[in-house]
């Protein structure tokens, strides 16, 4: 068991790297998507809706293939497996996160927006001081769930050749034919790597809700 673990551990940096990098891409790109989707102008809303729906309607592995073999294999653009994985997963999860952000923004009561308008608070301050702190409380738990889902989906990157945990497990198995052992350890490794996300989320949830309810 420990020998398997030491073999698979070689893939941990890639797995964590792909997960974190994709999550940052998703967290950043998701916000404008969410704000655009809430626009009152359908001309603004429609492109955002189309992007979100299409990103989610096609399987992640197909996106990775398209990005790696098609977009990223031209004479002008050469993407590494790592870059292709981060772009693909980042975009897909930007769509997922934008929905979580949207739910968070929707969860802030209308009265809060009205109070900021009645006080003539500038738009940037309205978001920064009033809306986002309240939306964050609603957004953090689903964000953590998506981070864990992203960690699991990062295994798909092994199919285009990223040398992550799953990739190493496949290679090891082709040598020693111990699929049961190797993939049990791989599965447990993913579950273990997800634990910190859950803990961070729980702690953040506690801190944020306390800030919301009172001293």
């Amino acid at each position, binding site marked *: 068991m420990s020998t398997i673990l030491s073999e698979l551990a070689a893939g941990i940096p890639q797995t964590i790297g792909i997960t974190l990098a994709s999550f940052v891409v998703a967290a950043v790109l998701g916000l404008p998507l969410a704000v655009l989707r809430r626009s009152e102008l359908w001309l603004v809303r429609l492109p955002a809706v189309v992007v979100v729906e299409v990103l989610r309607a096609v399987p992640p592995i197909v996106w990775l293939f398209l990005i790696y073999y098609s977009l990223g294999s031209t004479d002008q653009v050469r993407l590494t497996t790592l870059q292709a994985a981060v772009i693909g997963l980042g975009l897909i999860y930007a769509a997922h996160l934008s929905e979580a952000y949207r739910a968070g923004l929707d969860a802030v009561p209308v009265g809060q927006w009205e109070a900021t308008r009645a006080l003539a608070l500038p738009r940037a301050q309205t978001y920064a001081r009033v809306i986002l702190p309240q939306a964050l409380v609603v957004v953090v738990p689903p964000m953590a769930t998506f981070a864990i889902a992203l960690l699991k989906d990062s295994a798909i990157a092994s199919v285009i050749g990223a040398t992550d945990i799953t990739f190493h497990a496949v290679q090891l198995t082709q040598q020693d034919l111990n699929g049961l052992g190797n993939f049990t350890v791989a599965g447990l490794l993913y579950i273990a790597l997800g634990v910190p996300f859950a803990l961070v989320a729980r702690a953040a949830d506690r801190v944020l809700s306390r800030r919301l309810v009172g*001293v």
Partner: protein
Amino acid sequence: MTAESRPLLALDGVCVAYRHHEVVHDVSLEVASGEVVALIGPSGAGKSSLLRAINFLEPPSKGRVLLEGAEVGGSRRSLDALRRDVGMVFQSFNLFPHLTALQNVMLAPVHTLGVPPAQARERAMQQLTHVGLADHAHVKPGKCSGGQQQRIAIARALAMEPKVMLFDEPTSALDPELGAEVLATMRSLAAEGMTMVVVTHEMHFAEDVADRVVFMADGRIVEQNAAGKLMRDPQHPRTQRFLNAVRNR
């Protein structure tokens, strides 16, 4: 009307519509500086919609709003200028739950008016003292009673040093006992000469505190008069019916 008593606030033919459904029809109203006007009437009469039209939370579908004789335009800048001068107190307080009472009161002076934080803090403390809640400055709204929350909301609006205060059924969400402390705060505000427009179901408050009472039904002003007169001697049958119904409850 002499030049000095030019109305502070004037509504001219204001209509309010939600998706083509008009709820306020062609209302004109003038409020003099220092005057306290109570808007009463059955629910659905359009009182709140009219009040919200004054600071463009519901932009009027027709008509004009004039503050000190200047018409308020639809541009963001014009609206911000109006809202700096018009304070609003909501039925459901709408305090910012993640900020302390003091932070709630300080927020707009700092970020809307650009008052230096130290000075804003001092002024905010004065306003909280004014509504009797200096000791709750560092408490978040969730830990305060409804009456205290509404008084913090009043302090928040006062901190902008508005020329007019709008109250949208400020006591409807409160138990009578807690409502009383809010009414007491509003009473002292009126005594200090604040110009106020109050949508209310509190008939005693309308009669005792308001200078003028405006009775609305079905989106129109049915009757208005000096407070004592309208409450004791309503002319219009619709007003009589309403006041009888309310008093016999």
